[in-house]
């Protein structure tokens, strides 16, 4: 093949994560056709990301495994309803995983050991963990750089909501900020992250 079609197609500009996403999209489309082999591969390929997120929000390993299983059963059931116009298949899975994790956390709020005071110290720790955990470098680098562009209130509002599963009212309480301000910071902080990460549909 004479020309460099990898760059012709713009693939040279994709990050490793996006290239992975291409494979995940393909497997999810096959899954929608009832191909359980594709589904198995989809699971193997994405479960570290999905379970990593679920475990992070839920913290209890047994509960997290239940939710991870629910997420993949849901992915199998609703694969045909995945709309690639709304984002990558990986993002679809992670969105589903996050929502289910948060739902689980909320419904078991009273009975879990998650209930503990979140002092500003532990928030900082969470941010550090996000930033420092060893992982493949490129995407982490851009996530770290992008998070640094946010104001402290934007960053804390977003990370508390995302990693701890708190409602924006709870976040406002924790940060001693006005509820409307927190809502606004979540939105403009995410917008800033979106622009920094170059997310587009």
């Amino acid at each position: 093949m004479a020309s460099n079609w990898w760059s012709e197609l713009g693939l040279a500009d994709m990050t490793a994560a996006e290239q992975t996403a291409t494979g995940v999209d393909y497997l999810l489309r096959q899954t929608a056709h009832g191909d359980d082999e594709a589904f198995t591969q989809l699971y193997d390929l994405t479960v570290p990301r999905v379970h990593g997120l679920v475990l992070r929000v839920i913290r209890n390993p047994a509960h997290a495994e239940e939710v991870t299983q629910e997420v993949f059963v849901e992915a199998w059931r609703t694969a045909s309803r995945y709309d690639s116009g709304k984002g990558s298949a990986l993002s679809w899975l992670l969105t589903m995983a996050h929502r289910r994790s948060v739902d689980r956390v909320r419904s078991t709020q009273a009975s879990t050991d998650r209930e503990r005071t979140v002092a500003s110290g532990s928030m900082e720790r969470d941010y550090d963990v996000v930033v420092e955990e060893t992982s493949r470098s490129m995407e982490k680098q851009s996530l770290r750089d992008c998070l640094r562009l946010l104001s402290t209130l934007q960053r804390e509002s977003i990370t508390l909501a995302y990693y701890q599963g708190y409602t924006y009212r709870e976040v406002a309480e924790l940060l001693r900020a006005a509820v409307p301000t927190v809502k606004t910071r979540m939105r403009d902080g995410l917008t800033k992250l979106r622009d920094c990460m170059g997310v587009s549909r």
Partner: protein
Amino acid sequence: MMRWRRERPDVHTLVGAYVLDSVDDAERTAVERHLKACPGCAGEVAELQTTASNLSFPALAQPGPQLRARLLAEVRETRQLPPIPQPQADVEPWRLPARFRQPRLIALAAALVIFVVMLSFVGFNQHRGDRPNRDNVASAVLAARDATTRNTSYAESGSVTVISSRTRNAGVVVLSKLPEPPVNLRYQLWLMHNGKARSAGVVPRGATMRLLTKVDDSTQVAMTLEPAAGSSQPTMNPLVQLDL
């Protein structure tokens, strides 16, 4: 957008919290009802949702192996839902951009899938750090700005794809559906320069990915069939030859 603000001032400000799953059930329902009627807002939510899912990137964890077995058993007994009927007329249907509709891309996607599945095996199913070098080199090749890909079909349904990067001085060969070599033979890869061949390794039976390191000034990758122990020089004309 203006219409939305007039009708529902609250819903709009909830977009960020909604994307972070930081709203209560009633608010979630209100936002979702609104998104169905407002394609522009749905677009914003989709982008922010992708952004939020990128936040999860550093969190990686492997559940116990019994989860996989339980899940696959459950899936075998679970009926899949049919697709949702097409959206309303005033919502522009989404289409894959023309440049992504090419069969070559689909072939590449398939090669990438195999490659990434392989990576997930080396990366996750074994103990972490087992083969960090190999893993890193392969990731670096894939992510390299100057990565180039060559692909050729082989035999009936097989294909050989080489993804290589000069700056990384490395490449990844993805072997897809190659016929089994005769019992005492193996495929062997070669790096070619000025008509001279240097072995790039014997391909173990059933392997689907090989890493090329120290590509240096080689201009081609070739594949031959050789005795199982490998040869120091190719003993036949190449079955496959790809430019780097």
